[in-house]
């Protein structure tokens, strides 16, 4: 009787230890291959990690759908934003001549680009969908330069894992992994439907991330930081918004 229970205890102990070390190993491997999102902790961590890992395994390079010109929504819908700050209004009064996009962090040559500097980089035009996590959507033509061109210009260091991007509006910051940062459709956008990007849509500069939901496409971007780690993610929304 005691022999059976001892054997049971030992075998279960070994199984549990193997299971736990297997899980720990799986997590290290997953982290090594960039399959663990920064908000992997807490009660919803397993679901977020499964979603992010599955998406990164299956669709690291896949292109977001592009649409024909006839499918452009008219009129497009500009979601509400907080009232503009004084800093924004001053720049707007000057026709955004003094708008700058600074890039720092894990880059070889930190830089501050004017809108004209950004416009001189290779241009990409794409007709993609904005899909809000609320449920609505529209299609528009977006014109800008791929973020990868900006990153190549400043030279990202090998340990780079995320790009954080900051709006001029307070407390509006988000981040993406390198898979999305280097994706050719991730666009530093300055024009829309053939004209300068209107302020309600994020003008003068918006980062469009068409493979994720609308809230990752932060408006009024003035700064980017390349980093190898994110602070424990604070937002109330999921960090990864590909679903």
């Amino acid at each position, binding site marked *: 009787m005691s022999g059976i229970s001892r054997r049971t205890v030992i075998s279960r102990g070994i199984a549990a230890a193997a299971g736990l070390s297997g899980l720990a190993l799986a997590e290290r491997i997953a982290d090594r291959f960039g399959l663990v999102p920064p908000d992997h902790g807490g009660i919803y961590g397993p*679901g977020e990690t499964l979603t992010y890992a599955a998406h990164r395994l299956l*669709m690291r390079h896949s292109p977001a759908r592009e649409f024909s010109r006839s499918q452009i929504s008219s009129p497009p819908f500009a979601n509400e934003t907080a009232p503009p700050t004084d800093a924004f209004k001053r720049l707007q009064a000057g026709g955004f001549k003094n708008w700058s996009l600074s890039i720092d962090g894990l880059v070889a040559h930190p830089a501050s680009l004017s809108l004209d500097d950004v416009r001189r980089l290779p241009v990409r035009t794409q007709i993609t969908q904005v899909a809000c996590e609320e449920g*609505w*959507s529209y*299609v528009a033509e977006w014109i800008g330069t791929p973020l990868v061109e900006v990153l190549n210009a400043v030279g990202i260091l090998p340990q780079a894992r995320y790009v954080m991007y900051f709006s001029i509006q307070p407390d509006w910051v988000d981040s993406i992994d390198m898979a999305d940062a280097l994706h050719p459709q991730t666009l530093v956008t300055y024009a829309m439907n053939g004209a300068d990007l209107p302020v309600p849509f994020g003008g003068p500069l918006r980062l469009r991330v068409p493979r994720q939901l609308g809230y990752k496409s932060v408006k009024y971007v003035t700064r980017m930081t390349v980093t190898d780690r994110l602070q424990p993610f604070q937002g109330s*929304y*999921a960090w990864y918004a590909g679903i």
Partner: protein
Amino acid sequence: MADTAWDVSSVLSVGARTDAPRHGAIVRWTHWITALSFLALLVSGMEIVVSHPRFYWGENGNVLTPALFSLPIPSSRATVPTGYGYVLPDQNGWSRFLHFEAAWILVFTGLVYVMFGLFSGHFRNSLLPRAADRSWRAFSDSLAEHFRVDALAGADARSYNLLQRLAYLVVIFVMFPLVVWTGLAMSPAFVSAIPSTASALGGRQTARTLHFLLSVALVLFLLVHVAMVWLAGFRERMTAMITGHASAREESE
């Protein structure tokens, strides 16, 4: 028989048919995990819908375009015209977290159940209509029987009737796959990998509307399912789905 081999009690009592559980362990576990996941998906899904209770057809839709239909409820977004003079608090953060976590649990549970059902003979023996029942006559007889409460109460508890089998088959093999598909069709990343997920349906908004209508249909199924359990003997049927047996008396019979 194979689907009861999972349960130790059936191994210990070979040949004693009444000792075989009404529902095998796999069926019972997957049933309740599915029930809990569905409840989580339903609650979180309703919270997400509140942020935009308007539905569209095709690729695009927003408050500037006419709605196919809209729900007569207030919204958690000030941009949505609802006719109500107030805006509900935003619940999309935890709702979306919970929705996808429950969806993962449901998908894994569904895979376990389908694998079990295929290899154990559960689908063939318990869900596929019996050969004698594959006729319109059998269908209309079963339908008529469902409107006689006394017939339901006395129904054979050890086997699913024809209408029950058909309903379960439709839910398992039509509605759940469709609700997963239409859900994935709303993922911009998933659609980037497999564009036909959305385009085959006619677009993102069609997928969203179908996702909503399918969840309404699943809720209707749930209501009828619970009503039938109630009419057939709530306590006995619940005990059977929890313990495998309807009562202690049945086990000793």
